[in-house]
């Protein structure tokens, strides 16, 4: 078991492995997202109140969910990297941040676009869900800025790991804020006591989109990770050998 | 009770460059290890890594045959550090700086006066440290080294900025420290002449 992890964490091995598994993420992602989009946009019935405006749910909810999952992935791998000094884990954390930031941005934008017709406002300063999601975006920014500010990769890894862990406290707050404080943003629809408050024709495409986004996230993460690993190992033998064609040494 | 500092299979990177690999060394009570090497060979980096301020890529440091990672606190209790930068607050006087160092380490300061006299800075205790000249500041750093009463001295270029009398004084102090069973690890560009056991580590 331990040996397996050790091998997994060895950069050249991981680099190859990632290449092999990426298709296993891309294909389901494409399938699920295609199904989710078509079924969500055309076949799901419209909502009794919101009419067709509700269909933005098929982007908003998956994006919001990934924005949080990406942060958790980042914080957990940062923690692993810090404690067990595992470079690959740090690379994972580093690769997560920009993706997470983009999904957070997407969740904020779609939520805001949705809020205009629904609530009657783009943005509500007093709402804890909205505010804590905005804080999430700022946490990503802080993480990225800190990394950019430190030249030495190993130092950047460990410093930013501390920050990622500290910021993790925000995640449960985002999730539970709607239950703790009654405010504008709605409560949970999918995972709630008494089952999802949504008929199957609406729910299935949504679940497909969530899963599809997750696979998509995995694929992008692996891609970024490959570049990240390559960059970090740029001075090592295996990368040089790989970049130079065999016997190409002058 | 004799003590020893040993490094095994040390490997250190700075940036992309490997400074050394598979480096071994050992110092015992009463011995001096002189770290030598041209500019940029990695002396400062080695000393900082031994003290734990930067991380070795690989290898282990043993203090009295225990891995220092296991008991860093204990190792730090036995170590005193003298580096390029003096590490005193420029706004405080020498007396205030030393008083702080001693309470930080729970060392009693009964010998302060004697030590300062020996170093020739007993008249400067009330000036803010920032006002002291380069050499006077290095002498102040030596005062801390003496007062802390650690068994292991790690010194990076202790002779820099000192006048001739100062350099001789440092040699004398090291020699006395070794005679009492202390250990010393020293990086310098000067030639050193002493009657104690001296090993050389060429980087």
């Amino acid at each position, binding site marked *: 078991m331990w040996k397996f992890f050790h091998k997994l964490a060895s950069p050249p091995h991981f680099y190859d492995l990632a290449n092999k598994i990426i298709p296993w993420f891309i294909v389901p992602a494409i399938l699920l997202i295609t199904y989710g989009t078509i079924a969500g946009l055309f076949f799901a019935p419209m909502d009794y109140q919101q009419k067709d405006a509700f269909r933005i749910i098929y982007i908003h909810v998956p994006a919001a969910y990934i924005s949080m999952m990406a942060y958790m992935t980042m914080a957990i791998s940062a923690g692993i990297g810090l404690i067990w000094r595992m470079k690959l884990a740090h690379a994972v954390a580093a690769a997560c941040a920009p993706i997470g930031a983009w999904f957070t941005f997407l969740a904020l934008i779609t939520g805001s676009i949705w809020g205009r017709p629904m609530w009657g406002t783009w943005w509500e300063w007093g709402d804890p869900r909205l505010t804590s999601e905005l804080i999430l975006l700022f946490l990503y920014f802080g993480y990225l800025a800190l990394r950019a500010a430190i030249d030495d990769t190993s130092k950047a890894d460990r410093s930013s790991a501390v920050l990622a862990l500290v910021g993790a406290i925000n995640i449960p707050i985002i999730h539970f804020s709607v239950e703790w404080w009654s405010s504008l943003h709605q409560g949970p629809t999918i995972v709630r006591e008494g089952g999802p408050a949504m008929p199957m024709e609406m729910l299935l495409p949504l679940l497909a989109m969530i899963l599809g986004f997750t696979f998509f996230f995995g694929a992008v993460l692996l891609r970024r990770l490959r570049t990240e690993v390559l960059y970090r190992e740029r001075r090592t033998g295996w990368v040089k050998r790989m970049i130079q064609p065999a016997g190409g040494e002058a | 009770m004799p003590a020893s500092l040993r490094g095994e299979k040390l490997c250190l990177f700075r940036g992309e460059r490997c400074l050394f690999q598979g480096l071994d060394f050992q110092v015992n009570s009463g011995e001096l290890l002189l770290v030598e090497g041209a500019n940029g060979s990695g002396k400062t980096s080695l000393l900082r890594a031994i003290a734990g301020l930067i991380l070795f890529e690989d290898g282990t440091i043993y203090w009295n045959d225990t891995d220092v990672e296991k008991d860093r606190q204990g190792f730090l209790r036995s170590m005193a550090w003298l*580096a390029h930068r003096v590490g005193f607050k420029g706004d*405080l006087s020498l007396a205030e700086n030393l008083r*702080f160092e001693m309470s930080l380490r729970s060392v009693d300061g009964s010998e302060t006066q004697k030590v300062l006299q020996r170093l020739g800075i007993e008249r400067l205790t009330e000036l803010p440290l920032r006002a002291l000249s380069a050499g006077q500041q290095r002498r102040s750093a030596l005062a801390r080294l003496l007062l802390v009463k650690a068994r292991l001295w790690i010194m990076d270029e202790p002779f820099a900025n000192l006048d001739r009398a100062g350099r001789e004084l440092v040699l004398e102090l090291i020699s006395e420290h070794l005679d009492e069973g202390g250990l010393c690890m020293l990086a310098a560009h000067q030639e050193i002449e002493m009657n104690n056991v001296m090993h050389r580590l060429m980087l």
Partner: protein
Amino acid sequence: MPYSDSASPSLGKAFIALVRRDLLLAWKRPGDVLNPLFFFAMVATLFPLAVGPSVEQLALSGPGVLWVAALLAALLSLNSLFLTDYEDGSLDQLLLSPQPVVLLTLAKTTTHWLISGLPLVLVSPLIAVTFQMPGHAVGILMITLLLGTISLSLLGSIGAALTVGLNRGNALLSLLILPLAMPVLIFGARTVSLAAANDTVAAGIYFLGAYSAMAMVFAPFAAAAALKISNE
């Protein structure tokens, strides 16, 4: 050969020594204490100037403005928390002293609060008066600032430890800390507004208390870890 390694150094003594040293330093440079105060006062006067002199609006936005000013003043003074120690090499010496690093960060944070947070709390009533804040709200303002500045100093110590040696001035530090400081700001300002409107304030104060208790438990450790990394 009475080597000091036999004696186990006292934690309390070291803590007090560090607090004393930093207070002494502040005493020798009274600017460190006075500047955040002046800054606080200035920001609090800038707003009325920039927003315009409507009394009603002043009273309405007073708590928010005061709190933002306090937050900024606290942030501004954070930059130098570990910076001077880093630059003159005394951080090396502190990290190499036989004391747990978390003790050192805690001591430095305590001093920071004594030097910059506490005076802010004490001077806030004077500034509140210029915003026409009612008397009992001023009391609440002080309580929230007391709890809030504790959190800010603690959170700030993490940011300061992360950015020491990066030579970025305050901007990066603020960027790292503001997201975490936002809840403090929101609850602080809201609570004072509520107090000004004779409303119940207990929830806000409990929350601020909880936040600073949490910060007190975790921040020194995070700051210690960050400090060791940054000093490399």
